[in-house]
């Protein structure tokens, strides 16, 4: 059964869900011949990327990425600008489809074991289940209430009390409720930068996705607003799988369970965040996380 097709059978059988990880997966040793060390193997990852090549026209942006992400964990993608981490993130909800001239060279991205680039996959349903928070906060020029309910309204939900409930739950979930509860019908544009980004997070969780992709969500925020968003990420991982792209290595160290280091379109190393920062096995990773380049 292909889960991501539009239709009544959207519930994921519980048997598919991976059991919570009790122990860390055994770390495989990188073979010197392989360009990318195999990433930490997981029994049944929610996101399973195998040998992914990605092209912008003739330009290869991703080169043989193999990466597995576990459910209800935070995975951070780090690396210098242009290393492909944002491209990889946008492969996960097929936002790259919007860019002319892009294509998958080889390899697969599987979410719940479904190859999401197959033609029979409903990209609308995929994006509803794989939410996204962008680098530049993009609240719509509508009221806070309309921003949050946007995803539900386009899905055809009109029931006022249900919408009210979702608005409160999402705003509470994004730790924004107390700040905006008295001005739900004011424009979302009038909020501060950090509030806008949390509004975007609230909007993303309003449609109850399973995975939230965050593309440098704090790069435009001041340290206090950043701290709030990071705190929020800790809360969110109780319910959601989070993949976050960040330029800020301290942030990756603070919020993530696993970290992947990319360089020039390749995955250099992927491991427990602690290992990546304390005891990386690749010298390039070590050079990057210790601030010697990038």
């Amino acid at each position, binding site marked *: 059964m292909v889960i991501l097709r539009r239709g009544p059978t959207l519930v994921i059988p519980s048997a598919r869900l991976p059991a919570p990880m009790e122990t860390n997966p055994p770390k495989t040793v990188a073979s010197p011949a392989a360009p990318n060390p195999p990433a930490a193997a997981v029994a049944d990852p929610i996101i399973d990327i195998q040998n992914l090549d990605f092209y912008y026209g003739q330009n290869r942006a991703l080169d043989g990425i193999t990466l597995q992400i576990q459910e209800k964990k935070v995975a951070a993608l780090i690396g210098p600008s242009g290393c492909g981490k944002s491209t990889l993130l946008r492969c996960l*909800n097929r*936002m790259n489809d*919007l860019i*002319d001239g892009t294509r998958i060279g080889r390899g697969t991205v599987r979410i719940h074991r479904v190859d999401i680039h197959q033609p029979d996959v409903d990209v*609308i*349903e995929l*994006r*509803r289940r794989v*939410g*996204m928070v*962008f680098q*530049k906060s*993009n609240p*719509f*020029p*509508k009221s806070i209430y309309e921003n949050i309910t*946007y*995803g539900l309204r*386009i*899905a055809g939900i009109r029931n006022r009390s249900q919408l009210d409930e979702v608005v409160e739950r999402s705003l509470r979930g994004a730790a924004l409720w107390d700040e905006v509860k008295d001005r739900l019908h004011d*424009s979302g*544009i009038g909020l501060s930068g950090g509030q806008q980004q949390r509004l*975007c997070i609230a*909007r*993303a969780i309003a*449609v109850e996705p399973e995975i939230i992709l965050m593309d440098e969500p704090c790069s435009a925020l001041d340290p206090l607003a950043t701290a709030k968003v990071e705190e929020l990420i800790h809360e969110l991982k109780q319910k959601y799988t989070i993949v976050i792209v960040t330029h800020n290595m301290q942030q990756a160290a603070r919020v993530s369970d696993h970290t992947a280091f990319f360089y020039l379109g390749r995955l250099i190393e992927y491991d427990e965040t602690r290992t990546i920062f304390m005891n990386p096995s690749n010298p390039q990773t070590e050079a990057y996380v210790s601030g010697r380049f990038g």
Partner: protein
Amino acid sequence: MPDAAPSHVFQRRSTVVRRQEALLAWLFRGATYLVLLCGALLLGNIVWRGSQTVFIPRPPFVNVAFLTQAPESLYVFEYQGKKMELGDQAFRQFKAEHHLADIKAESYVYSAGGIFPNIVGTVLLVVGSMAIALFLGVSAAVYLNEYARQGRFITMIRLAILNLAGVPSIVFGLFGFGLFVIFLGWNVSLLAGWFTLAFMVLPVIITASEESLKAVPRGFREGSLALGATKWQTIYKNVLPYALPGILTSSILGIARVAGETAPIMFTAAYVVRDKLPWEGLARWTDFFFQGVMALPYHIYVVSSKIPQNEYTERVQYGAAFVFLLIVALIATTSILLRNKLRNRYKW
């Protein structure tokens, strides 16, 4: 002594340079004021002489007859030593009452009565053609900016649209005459005029709509799609509303052009004279679209150049021009107010 050594580094430059600067500034200022002067003279002339027709010095202060009656011939004659000026109907009534079957009177066509059918015709032409132009233009702009894969073919289409904007309006008139009036057999009709005028303003509307769509930040589209919206939902709910003020701005220019052009309608939609108003005497409702109308710009053209000029025709010439300017200003103001309202609603 321009070559004297400066006493300090910020010493003023020579007077020649300063005079040049002042001269240039006055040249540019003069060019601007000349345009202003031309505009003021033109507008002032029409407003001054037109308002003498449209307004009257006694209550209700507006010449209601001029705005509500059809054009009539004016009859000037002498009766019991008094000079009389009467419109066609009044003249006939007068003749019947006073039994003056063979009175000698000079007649001046279109110089009496009003311009009501012309106002109606122009408003109908503007509304219909703008509806067609906005529908086609916005659709095309949405396709070009949101759906089409950018490439050489689309670039060529854009170039063709820009070129179309430079085609003289008389050519659009001939095109409409050939295609709609003759080939499609619509005759001289509202429908033919609508499409001809719509095609004339389409390039402007497409180009401006595309610019407005481009100005909507990419983040709004991505944010919407990332929430599981379809492409059309995204465009309809989260792109078009924000582009609408810009689209309306372009349509304001379009309205002025559609209302004002004479050449495209003279072969396709406009009658010199027509007794019935567009809604009178229709056998079927569809006949509404297949009738010609009188229109203000064409009427101004006719009364200014197709009939002998004299003191009696001037009244209707200036009156019609003044009313015409007022109507265009009224429609444009409405659009501007609507746009401003939308703009305040969607700010980013």
